[in-house]
């Protein structure tokens, strides 16, 4: 007898069909995300060409050491998600759970570092809207800080969602609620999302922190 959770959801008749549909939906979603962040990165690049002095002033005040640590953290979490997917294919549940928890903790560490960075910038009066007297002299530098804040905060929300998804998957596996085809499909979709969030940061990091220092 086939248990209901071992059957694909309606209207699909086969797991392969459901997984293909899930992949299509996920890649469509990721395409939208790539376009949104791509536009922000494009604006930052264009803005840098228009106002090199203002951008250089703003970038010099950013904590690029913390941002480098954050990049390392996200890249390592991506590796762990890939290893979790591999463990799932090899039916190694223990390794899968360890990798998932590791990736989730690293993403949480990313958010903690980002919070620390924001708090430092708040104290220094760099964050837009929080200080009456900004240490940034050029208006274009203050405008770049607006863009920096919007782009990194938006990305931070995506990382927060990734942390939630990682925890949800971990608890699902730990409690045995996620099994079989359903589990592997959900893990694959979360992994795709994770890598794209990582990929976006990989482009945001040099655009905001490194170029034009």
């Amino acid at each position, binding site marked *: 007898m086939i248990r209901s959770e071992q059957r694909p959801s309606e209207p699909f008749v086969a797991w392969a069909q459901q997984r293909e549909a899930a992949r299509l939906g996920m890649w469509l979603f990721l395409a939208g995300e*790539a376009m949104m962040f791509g536009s922000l990165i494009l604006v930052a690049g264009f803005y840098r*060409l228009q106002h090199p002095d203002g951008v250089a002033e703003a970038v010099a005040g950013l904590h690029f050491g913390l941002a480098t640590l954050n990049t390392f953290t996200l890249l390592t979490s*991506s590796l762990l998600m890939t290893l979790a997917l591999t463990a799932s294919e090899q039916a190694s549940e223990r390794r899968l759970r360890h990798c998932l928890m590791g990736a989730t903790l690293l993403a949480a560490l990313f958010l903690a570092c980002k919070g620390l960075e924001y708090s430092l910038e708040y104290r220094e009066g760099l964050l837009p809207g929080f200080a009456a007297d900004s240490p940034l002299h050029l208006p274009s530098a203050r405008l770049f800080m607006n863009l920096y804040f919007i782009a990194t905060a938006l990305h931070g929300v995506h990382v927060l969602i990734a942390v939630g998804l990682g925890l949800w998957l971990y608890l699902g596996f730990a409690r045995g609620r996620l099994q079989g085809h359903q589990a592997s499909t959900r893990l694959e979709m979360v992994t*795709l999302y994770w890598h794209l969030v990582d990929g976006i940061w*990989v482009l945001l990091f*040099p*655009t905001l*922190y490194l170029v034009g*220092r």
Partner: protein
Amino acid sequence: MTPVNALKVYAGLLLLLAVEVLVALFWPQHDSVVMLAAAGQFLLLLVFYLGLYRHQGWVRLFGWLYLFWLLVMLVFILGESATR
């Protein structure tokens, strides 16, 4: 992807990160090297971690779409700079 290959890609990503940071610290005038290293990292993620190399059909189409978008950004920025 095997764990060994995943680690190789990870090593490549870290190497490119080191290149970015070192160039930004010691040769800040070479911005294009920093952005090329970042594009290399994105490419590695897209091809190996997101799995562009093993998928066919529309998954591959979306992958090319992402790369095309990167190219559009690059052409736009360089074009704007050259024609100013």
